[in-house]
């Protein structure tokens, strides 16, 4: 299944296409939401003026002090200026999973079994990381 010419393979081109569109879209959303955030159009979960009091804290202490959401609970707070930015961040962070899903049917069609398995495993690994099920202790 190795690519034996100088042109990129079909799956590589498909991956690149989705990555290109998704990256610019995610970046645009991130920048727009950031200016909405700092403009104060929407109230922030943590008032901007108070933020310097908290960003020196360890993340665990920050979460406890502010009762800040962990996992996907931020999604319920996208009406707040600061958590609105998480849409763009999640888009950029989730883009690779989407790219793998796009190339999976191509790999299936090519009967490239080893890479089908590897792609599925990668999707599972990234989905596990994104799920929010993994908890960090030790504080």
């Amino acid at each position: 299944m190795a690519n034996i010419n100088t042109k990129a393979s079909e799956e590589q081109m498909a991956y690149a296409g989705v990555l290109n569109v998704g990256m610019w879209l995610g970046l645009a959303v991130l920048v727009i939401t950031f200016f909405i955030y700092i403009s104060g159009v929407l109230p922030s979960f943590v008032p901007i003026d108070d933020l310097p009091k908290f960003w020196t804290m360890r993340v665990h202490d920050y979460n406890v002090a502010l009762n800040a959401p962990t996992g996907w609970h931020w999604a319920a707070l996208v009406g707040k200026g600061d958590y609105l930015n998480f849409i763009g961040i999640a888009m950029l962070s989730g883009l690779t999973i989407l790219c793998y899903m796009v190339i999976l049917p191509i790999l299936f069609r090519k009967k490239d079994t080893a890479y089908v398995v590897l792609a599925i495993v990668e999707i599972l690994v990234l989905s596990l990381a994104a799920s929010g099920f993994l908890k960090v202790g030790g504080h």
Partner: protein
Amino acid sequence: MVRLLKITFVLLAVFAMLTAAGTVFASNEPTPAAPAAEAADGHGDTRAAATAPVSVVPESTAPWWIWPLSLFITTFILGILAVLGGVGGGVLFVPIVGGFFPFNIDFVRGAGLLVALAGALAAGPGLLKRNLASLRLAIPVAVIASAAAIGGAMIGLALKPNVVNTLLGATILFIVVIMATAKKSDFPNVPKPDNLAQSLGIMGIYREESLGKDVEWTVHKTPIGMALFVVIGIMAGMFGLGAGWANVPVLNLLMGAPLKISVATSKFLLSITDTSAAWVYLNQGAVLPMIVVPSLVGIMLGSIIGVKILARSKPKAIKWMVIGLLLFAGLRSLLKGLGIWK
């Protein structure tokens, strides 16, 4: 050069104006209710908010907007230096911002991962389309590195800041040694692919414009290379560093991929490795948009300017400047972790 300086100045001015405009708007808004009160409205555990240890934290005297603006300017310069020095932005970002800004190292690492991720996502499409980044080489390696990065992120977030800073400092100093001493091989000799590389079909052909011919490549020592990617993934997740500094020597010097393929695949690989670690930081709440967005925009704009300057620069001099900068930042991190330079 004058034109470049003008572009740089305009970009800086635009961002500064937008940030300042945001400040003016923000100051006209009524102060939103305190987060603790929000908690009482049903955002989860109110008991935690009631016992919040807010009062023990010293308040910064500088207005908030000083920090994102400083961050933007700093990362803009880092973006230029990263391109000229041939390193990823993340490896400069974490030790420098962690060492000289007031943010906790947890948030700096979260931002560092996203900075490295955004850079890799931006570079990925072009490298893939030009067949310089190889999906066949990246996919097997990425499974190992991304799984390890999750472990690294979880370990990193569980460690105490002084331990993280000490280890980070030691790692940065190690990177300095690698950068100063490691050799690179444009076309390493790979007598024959190993069994794993052969069964996975890790090979390809790319057009080497400098030679005007097509270059066939494959890899060997794949199992050892993959074992090393466990370590690389853990370090990337633990410290929030892009791992190009380690990816390239393993792909190029150990596994025998041509230098261009190694550099391009390494950059693309970061988009997968850093994704897994970034999710862990995001889900733990270690991502603050006020740190992430100015850094990300700053480093990307800096990289664009850096690419334009690259053609006229003296790479060796800049490489040594970057090494000097990393040496200073690494020492700062190490001494901060050891409590010698607070």
